[in-house]
């Protein structure tokens, strides 16, 4: 019994060791335990075998590692290629999936985030994404009262305010929140309490502002700060992860709605947030809202006939384009991983064939199959580890680069970080491929006798392996075509966007924002006085050609629309159906932005309060309302006042190069009277040629000289704003192009590797052919022809998939058709060229095969 127990234990040893020493071990064990009791023998057996077996395993591992290092040192080129390949595949994948997970999948930082819903107004028909148009207080009140599938509705709005009194005056982004909002979100404050009643004069500050502006003062609660001239007591500080309604919000003040706030259903400035009641689905709640809004349209036809709603969950705030680009990048990096896998497999297949002979020799010298498998496993894992480590480096570099693809509208904190799961997954994938294909030479050894392998020499492998390699290269070609085509579409879209004429000259224009405190902006005399003083001071600075105030710089303020009433028309044009962009400007606005006056005149200093109200309109405005008449001198109404048209200017791209802009209407800031919010002129633009940016400090001094408490923000060049319009596109393009370039490179490597190997394997056959009088160029043609065959086999599915991918992501392509033949053909040609380039060296080598040597070397 003790003997069989000992024998069973011996299974812990490696098979090779057992094969060599098992009988000796058993005999020596029997000899040394003769006469001992059964328990003592069993104990001795365990004590003998377990530690020694472990040590033998470690010894073999040490040997295998040493051997692997030597083997890798001999083929450094192979090792470097494999490690780089793995690094690129693993790194690119980990980075993209880390960012995608952060944006698309990670739960938002609120308890039970999936039940949170947001509500805004929107068009009756058709939809968009995120908040389309805000709610009026009356509509909010009625919806909150009538819905049953959502509980705890709370209203909020976005404002900006001047924060004065602690250090530099600054401009902060804030939210007004109803008393229901904080309790609904369920996040506890870090200090103090949250806003849970409509009590004026309190404020809750965010962690970021608390740190940056108040130095993390632990006694902040109870202190008084000044926001837009009114004192407010800090009642709480929110924790660092709390972002609501978006990432930019720095503080929260109570939203207070009074009776007259509910009077005008057209005055929309609120959004709503709620939670689905238990058991209600998002779609049920949406159906519920359909009914509610239809009823509102019936009850208040004058204001609500065209009013629909937009209902969404917080994560769906981001635009579909952001989502598409992330999904596209995930697709691209998956493709890259596939490519990496194919290339890795191919490289290992090539190496396997080259090692057939080495392994056959070792087997013939007595190395057991188990030892060889172990050896190959060790080498494969070592390579995978090296590649994975390098991949980790690549991912660490790439994640911050990808981070600016995160849309700012999402209420999530901070930056995406490297995702360990993504890294593990990508590494496992490459390791499985590495190890799996690394074992091929050993499996071949099992299939045939070692003798055949020795006899075949380096030519082993056989037809099935060659077909597999060919298929892998074809897959690489296909993936490359897809990635190339996607980047090409993006490049063409970027060109098209950059070629869009904004309609104004942004070069050499400095812009900055001086948002007035409400006490000053509400008083039209004080307000105008401020503008005049600042403009006079700025124009006295050297180098200033023109300067103006406006209620909104194009592409910075994209909204701000109004409806138009034409006398004689049957009913006023609804602002929701035919809006026009509405701006208050000072006289030099057009000169500063280089917008020519096409007809009539611009504003003059004489266009003041008390004089007839005048307006400058854009060409599309004129065409919409007076298509057949002379617009100059015509009158129209908006926001309860009548204006006469005095001039016509060309249209500009108010909403940015990629969006449709409304016709534009400009009125004189000096004739504004009582205005509020969005429409108060606050942006100062100064044309100063090449010296624009160096002017900034002089302009600051001018403003400080007039009011030391006036915050100045958003200082920069207008041309940078235009540049930023395409920043997203350029970021996307860089990422995708990098992936495509890597793909192309990998394909080139793959083709070259395959053909070089083919030439090496068939050198004898080629030598014989040449000896029998075959023309060298026929041999070369055979090699290049093989490359062309693979390119065609891979290229056809590549084009089909590229077309499908382009259709699926066409929203990114700014009108470039997904089947655009020029783009697709260009990509195929490029891949063909790479294929051809990859086949050149092998073809050259084939032609130079010496018939004598090729035959003798066997």
């Amino acid at each position: 019994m003790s003997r069989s127990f000992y024998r069973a234990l011996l299974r812990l040893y490696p098979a090779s060791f057992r094969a060599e020493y098992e009988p000796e071990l058993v005999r020596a064990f029997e000899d040394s335990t003769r006469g001992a009791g059964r328990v003592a023998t069993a104990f001795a057996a365990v004590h003998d075998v377990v530690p020694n077996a472990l040590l033998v395993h470690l010894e073999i591992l040490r040997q295998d590692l040493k051997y692997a290092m030597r083997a890798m040192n001999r083929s450094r080129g192979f090792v470097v290629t494999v490690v780089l390949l793995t690094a690129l595949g693993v790194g690119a994948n980990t980075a993209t999936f880390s960012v995608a997970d952060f944006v698309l999948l990670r739960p938002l930082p609120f308890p039970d985030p999936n039940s949170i819903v947001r509500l805004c107004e929107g068009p009756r028909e058709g939809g968009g994404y995120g908040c389309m148009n805000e709610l009026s207080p009356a509509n909010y009140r009625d919806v909150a009262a009538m819905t049953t599938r959502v509980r705890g509705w709370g209203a909020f709005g976005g404002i900006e305010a001047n924060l004065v009194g602690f250090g530099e005056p600054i401009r902060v982004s804030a939210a007004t929140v109803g008393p229901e909002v904080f309790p609904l979100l369920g996040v506890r404050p870090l200090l103090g309490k949250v806003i849970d009643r409509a009590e004026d004069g309190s404020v809750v500050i965010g962690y970021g502002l608390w740190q940056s502006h108040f130095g993390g003062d632990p006694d902040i609660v109870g202190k008084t700060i000044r926001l837009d001239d009114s004192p407010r007591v800090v009642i709480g500080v929110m924790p660092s992860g709390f972002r609501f309604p978006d990432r930019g919000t720095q503080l929260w003040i109570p939203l207070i709605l009074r009776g007259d706030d509910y009077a005008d259903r057209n005055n929309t400035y609120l959004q709503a947030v709620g939670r689905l009641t238990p058991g209600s689905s998002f779609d049920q709640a949406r159906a519920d809202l359909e009914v509610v809004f239809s009823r509102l349209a019936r009850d208040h036809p004058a204001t609500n006939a065209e009013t629909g709603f937009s209902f969404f969950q917080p994560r769906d705030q981001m635009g579909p384009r952001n989502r598409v680009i992330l999904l596209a990048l995930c697709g691209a990096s998956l493709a890259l991983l596939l490519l990496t896998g194919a290339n890795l497999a191919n490289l290992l297949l090539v190496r396997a064939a080259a090692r057939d002979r080495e392994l056959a020799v070792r087997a013939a010298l007595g190395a057991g199959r188990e030892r060889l498998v172990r050896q190959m496993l060790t080498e494969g894992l070592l390579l995978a580890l090296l590649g994975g480590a390098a991949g980790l480096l690549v991912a660490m570099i790439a994640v911050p680069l990808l981070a600016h693809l995160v849309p700012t509208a999402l209420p999530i904190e901070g930056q995406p970080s490297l995702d360990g799961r993504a890294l593990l997954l990508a590494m496992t994938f490459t390791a499985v491929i590495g190890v799996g294909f690394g074992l091929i030479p050993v499996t071949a050894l099992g299939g045939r006798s070692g003798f055949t392998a020795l006899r075949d020499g380096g030519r082993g492998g056989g037809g099935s392996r060659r077909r597999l390699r060919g298929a892998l290269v074809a897959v690489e070609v296909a993936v490359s075509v897809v990635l190339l085509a996607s980047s090409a579409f993006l490049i063409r879209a970027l060109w098209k966007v950059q070629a869009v004429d904004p309609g104004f000259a942004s070069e050499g224009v400095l812009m900055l924002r001086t948002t007035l405190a409400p006490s000053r902006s509400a008083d039209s005399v004080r307000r105008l006085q401020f503008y005049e003083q600042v403009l006079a001071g700025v124009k006295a600075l050297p180098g200033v050609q023109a300067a103006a105030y406006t209620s909104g710089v194009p592409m910075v303020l994209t909204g701000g629309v109004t409806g138009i009433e034409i006398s004689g028309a049957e009913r006023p044009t609804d602002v929701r159906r035919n809006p026009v962009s509405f701006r208050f400007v000072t006289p030099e606005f057009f000169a500063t932005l280089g917008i020519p006056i096409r007809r009539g005149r611009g504003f003059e200093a004489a266009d003041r309060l008390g004089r007839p109200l005048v307006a400058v309109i854009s060409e599309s405005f004129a065409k919409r309302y007076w298509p057949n008449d002379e617009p100059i001198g015509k009158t129209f109404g908006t926001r309860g006042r009548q204006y006469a048209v005095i001039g016509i200017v060309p249209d500009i791209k108010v909403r940015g190069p990629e969006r449709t802009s409304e016709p534009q209407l400009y009125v004189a800031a000096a004739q504004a009277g009582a205005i509020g919010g969005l429409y108060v002129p606050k942006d100062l633009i100064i044309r100063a040629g090449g010296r624009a940016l160096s002017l900034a400090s002089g302009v600051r001094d001018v403003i400080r000289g007039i009011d030391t408490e006036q915050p100045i923000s958003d200082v920069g060049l207008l041309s940078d704003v235009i540049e930023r319009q395409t920043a997203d596109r350029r970021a996307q393009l860089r990422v995708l192009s990098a992936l495509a370039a890597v793909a192309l490179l990998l394909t080139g490597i793959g083709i070259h590797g395959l053909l070089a190997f083919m030439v090496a394997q068939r050198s004898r056959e080629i030598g014989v052919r040449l000896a029998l009088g075959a023309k060298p160029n026929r041999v070369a043609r055979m090699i290049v022809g093989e490359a062309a065959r693979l390119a065609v086999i891979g290229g056809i599915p590549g084009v089909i998939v590229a077309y499908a991918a382009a259709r699926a992501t066409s929203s990114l392509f700014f009108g470039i058709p997904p089947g655009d033949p020029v783009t697709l053909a260009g990509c195929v040609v490029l891949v063909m060229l790479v294929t051809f380039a990859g086949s050149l060296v092998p073809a050259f080598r084939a032609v130079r095969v010496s018939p004598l040597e090729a035959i003798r070397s066997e």
Partner: protein
Amino acid sequence: MTDHDAVSELLPLPPATFHILLSLANDERHGYAIIQDVEERTAGELRMSAGTLYRSVARMVEQGLISEVIRRRSVADDERRRYYRITAFGTAVARAEMRRLAQLVRLARATGLTPETA
């Protein structure tokens, strides 16, 4: 690599290895005989288990310190057992280890230290 390098690379020897070399220094022996010899030599202080012995033997064969005896020299030997003998390299390594140990002892003596307790 010179012989000298190859020798000194293996030093210091694990005790079991040194004892096996000593045991094979003058005679070819099979496994259990080595165990017994070492045990006798050390007055029962070092009693190797079968596993320890063959793990050492496997490594020493790999290192070229000992080799398996292909043909028996005496009919008295047990035919079924595998015998080992020391190689020239193994002798050189054993000598080098002796020198190393002797030097160590000399160094210790020079400090006035004696093995006997005072």
